C-alpha cells in the first residue's frame, strides 16, 4: 500500500516525536523504527528525515548532540524536549480527532478492509 505523500508529511512530525519519546535516538535508527512500525507501508526517502530533524530542533521540540556509535562512528543523537512532549500531546489530540471523525464514517468498512 502506498500512503499519499501529503499524509506521510503530516505524519512525520508526530511519528518522529513519538519515536523519540521511547528514548534518545539517531537518524538511521529512527528510520528503521518507522519501517518496523509501518511494516514498510510508510515510504520515506531517507534523506528527507534530516531536514525535518533540523526543523524540529530549531522549533525546540528536540535537542541534538554529537556522539559516537559503539563502533566509533560519529553520530548525531536526538532527544525530545519538554516542548516536544507538549507538542506531541497536542498532535496526538489532533490525530485522535481526525481518526474519530473518519472512523465514525468508516467504522464498519475500515475494520473490514483491515481484517
Amino acid at each position, binding site marked *: 500500500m502506498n500512503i499519499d505523500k501529503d499524509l506521510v508529511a503530516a505524519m512525520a512530525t508526530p511519528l518522529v516525536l513519538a519515536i523519540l519519546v521511547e528514548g534518545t535516538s539517531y*537518524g*538511521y535508527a529512527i528510520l528503521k523504527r518507522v519501517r518496523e512500525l509501518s511494516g514498510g507501508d510508510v515510504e520515506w*526517502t*531517507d*534523506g*528527507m528525515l*534530516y*531536514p525535518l530533524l*533540523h*526543523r524540529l530542533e*530549531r522549533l525546540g521540540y528536540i535537542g541534538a548532540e554529537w556522539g559516537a*556509535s559503539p563502533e566509533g*562512528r*560519529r*553520530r*548525531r543523537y536526538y532527544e525530545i524536549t519538554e516542548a516536544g512532549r507538549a507538542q506531541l500531546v497536542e498532535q496526538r489530540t489532533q490525530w485522535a480527532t481526525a481518526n474519530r471523525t473518519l472512523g465514525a464514517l468508516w467504522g464498519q468498512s475500515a475494520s473490514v478492509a483491515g481484517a
Partner: protein
Amino acid sequence: MTVAMVEARISEWRAAVLRGGAVADTDADELEGHLREQISELEAVGLAVDEAFLIAVKRLGEVHQITAEFAREHGDRLWKQLAMPRPDDGRLRSLGTMLAFAVITAVLIQLARMLTAIPGASEAWFVRDVSLFVLPVLAAYFALVRRMPGRRALVAVTVVGALALAVNLFPFADGASTDVLVAIHLPVALWFVVGAAYVGGDIRASARRMDFIRFTGEWAIYYALIALGGAVLVGLTIAVLTPIAPGAVEQVITWVLPSGAAGAVIVAAWLVEVKKSVIENLAPVLTAIFTPLFAVMLLGSAVVYGLVGSGQEFDRDLLFVFDLLLLVVLGLVVYGISARDGARGAGAMDAVRLVAVVAAIALDVLVLASMFERVGEFGFTANRAAALGLNLVLLVNLAVTAWLTVRLLTGRGQAVRVERWQTGYLPVFAAWVAVVVLVLPPIFGFA
C-alpha cells in the same frame, strides 16, 4: 568494485551534496554516517559493497531533492554566503591585507589633498594626479597577493614612476585641454598596470587577460554599489549633523569622502575576488539585459542619422559621445563573450550582438565622415586628436568583431576567436592611452 572505489563514490556523493551551500559540512557528516550505516547493514545481509552503495544512495533520495529540502529549512545559509565569508584564518588574513591597503590609499589621498593647500599648488594638479595615489596601491595589493615575480614588479614600478614623472614635469598651461586629457587617460593607463599585477605579471596569456576583463566589469559594479551606499551614508550624516554642527559638514566632505572613495577601490577589488566563486557574475547578466535594448536603440539611431544626416550642429562633444557609445557597445560585446560557453555554437544572442555592433559601426562612420570635414575646416586640436584616435581604435576593434561574429554565425569560425581578438587587442588600447598621456601633450604644446 573494490572498497576503495566505493570510498571514492562516497566522497563524490558527499561533494555533490555539499555543492550549492545549503547542506553544511556537519549535515554532510550526518548524511554520510547514515549512508555508511546503511551500506554496512546491507553488506551484512550478503550484498556486495557496490550493490549496497547503490541501494543506500537510492534510499537516501535524489541529491537535488535532499539539498532542496535542506535549502528550505536552512534558507539563511544560502544568503549568508552572499554576506561576509566565515572568517577562518586565511580569510581573516586576506581581510587584514585588504584593509591595510585600503587604509594606505585613504591616507595617501589625504596627504595629496593637503599638498594642494601648499601655496603654488593648484587644484588641477590634484585632479590630474589623484589616480596616482590610488591605483598603484591597488596594483601593489595584487602584486603582493598574487606573488608577482620581482622583475615583473620592477617593470610595473618603473612604468608607474615614468608616468608620474612625465605628467608632473609637463609644463601644462593653465586650463590646458591636454591637462584634462591626461587627467582622464592616466587612470586608464594605471588600470593596465593594475591588470599586469592582477595576472601576476603573466600578461601574455589570453585566458588571464580575459580574467582581468571579467574582473574589471565586476569591480565596476561593486564600486558603483559601494558608492551608492556611501552616498546614502554621507547624505544622512550631513542631514543629521547640519542642525547641531554646521561646520562638520565640510569636514565630512573633505576628509571622509576622498578617503572613502579611494579605500573603496581596494575593497571592491577584494570583494570581486572573494565573491568570485559564490555569486553569479553580474556583468554578463547586465549585458544580457542591455544588449538587445542597445541593439534596438543603435539601429534606430543609425536609420535616423542615415536619413537626416549628422547635421550642421555637430560639435566636438558629440564625438566624445560617440566614443562613449562605442565603448559601451564594446563592453556589451566583451562581457557577453566573457560569459558565453565556449563549447556552444552560435546563438540568438550572438545575432543580437552583431546587430548592435554593425549599427554602432554604421552610426560611427556617419559621424566620422562629418568629423573629417570639420577637421579639414578647423585643423586638429588635442581634444579632436584624442577623440578621433580613440574612435578609430574602437572602430577597428568593432569591425573585426563584427566580421568574426558573422563567421561564427555562419558556422565558419569559433567563438573563441572573438575572445582571442578582444584579449589580443588590449595592448592596442594600452598603447593608445599611453600616446594620449605621454605624446599628445608635447605635440600640442601643453595647451
